[in-house]
């Protein structure tokens, strides 16, 4: 019997759990996860659990470099407005993490089991790929998935396999998000990867809605303070949440 796994399940039972994932790295998962949380937090308290043990981008996006407090109830979140954030980065601080494959799952179970989540909506920021994180998440909870991709061929081909797995595993894919589709310029829209037709086709094939997000060069100025960002990307994310 594995009490931490049971506790993790108990903590997330009955909550809305949205996992933002992609088989591909660097496509904007953490950015989208943060913007989903920031949008939802305008109406209700929202938690983010950062399952990217090695990247901890959520903390970097919000500019958090402290350690988590620990109470009788477990790991206490960092609070940014109405957003509560949990991350391994808040346990190890400014230090690399290296783990064997078999211990990865244990670390994730500890994080999920010990995080004192009191919010009804929980956003999970997933690392890229289809390793232990994906399996651990599935052991603990049946999430709804926002699947992020670039509209590039390479990215879509990789993400297609993840989509196949998710559908095989009866995990609900709410949206496919084609990030960095277009850039607004005075001369009109530029599509750096071409028109996102291949993403549209993938969505149509499985009856999943596809959302298109722009490139926002302004975003870079908000690294470390994404909570202050209110640009076009946040607006676009808000649109597909409602």
């Amino acid at each position, binding site marked *: *019997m*594995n*009490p*931490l796994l*049971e*506790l993790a399940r*108990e903590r997330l039972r009955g909550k809305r759990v949205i996992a933002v994932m992609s088989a591909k790295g660097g496509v904007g998962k953490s950015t989208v996860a943060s913007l989903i949380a920031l949008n939802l937090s305008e109406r209700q308290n929202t938690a983010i659990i950062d399952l990217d043990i090695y990247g901890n981008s959520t903390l970097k996006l919000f500019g958090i470099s402290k*350690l988590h*407090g*620990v*109470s*009788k*109830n*477990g*790991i206490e979140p960092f609070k940014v407005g109405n957003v509560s954030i949990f991350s*391994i980065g808040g*346990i*190890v*601080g400014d*230090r*690399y*993490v*290296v*783990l*064997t494959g*078999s*211990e*990865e799952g*244990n*670390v994730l179970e*500890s*994080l999920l*089991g*010990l995080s*004192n989540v009191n919010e009804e909506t929980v956003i999970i920021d997933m690392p890229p790929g289809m390793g232990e994180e994906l399996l651990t998440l599935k052991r603990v909870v049946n999430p709804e998935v926002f699947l992020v991709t670039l509209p590039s061929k390479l990215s879509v081909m990789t993400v297609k396999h993840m989509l196949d797995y998710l559908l095989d595993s009866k995990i609900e894919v709410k949206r496919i998000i084609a990030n960095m589709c277009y850039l607004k310029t005075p001369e009109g829209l530029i599509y750096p990867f071409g028109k996102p037709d291949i993403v549209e086709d993938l969505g149509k094939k499985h009856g999943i809605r596809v959302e298109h997000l722009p490139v926002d060069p302004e975003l870079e100025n908000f690294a470390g303070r994404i909570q202050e960002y209110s640009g076009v990307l946040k607006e676009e994310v808000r649109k597909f949440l409602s």
Partner: protein
Amino acid sequence: MHEWAIAMSIVGSVEKWSLERNLKVKKVYLSIPSLSMLEVEILLEAFNTIKKESKISGAELEVIVREQNFKCRSCGNVFTMKDIKEELESVIKDYGEENPLHIAPSLITAFAKCPKCGSNDFEVDSSIRVEGIEV
């Protein structure tokens, strides 16, 4: 401090187990890794407090602390906590009581190396598990 959260998880999962089988639990055997530095006294106190509000209020907790045998996946060397004493001490010095190993003992590979070959790539037996239930 999070011994209380762990005790809560044990009461919760054993209670669920007993209700599913309609069995009365007399004793719970919990196995923890010494690496986690969990305090057995606090675990017992927490368990005995939390169980009162549960369906396993008659259960007693026995905690077994597992000594660690780490096995290097690179050179095969087997070593123990004594062999990485300095690293363990510096984790406690740097982070205090609520240190990473206390919260997630699996993180040891981020803080210690095989004393023979210097690799972080070693096996750990770090899980917290209920090993037996007496009814």
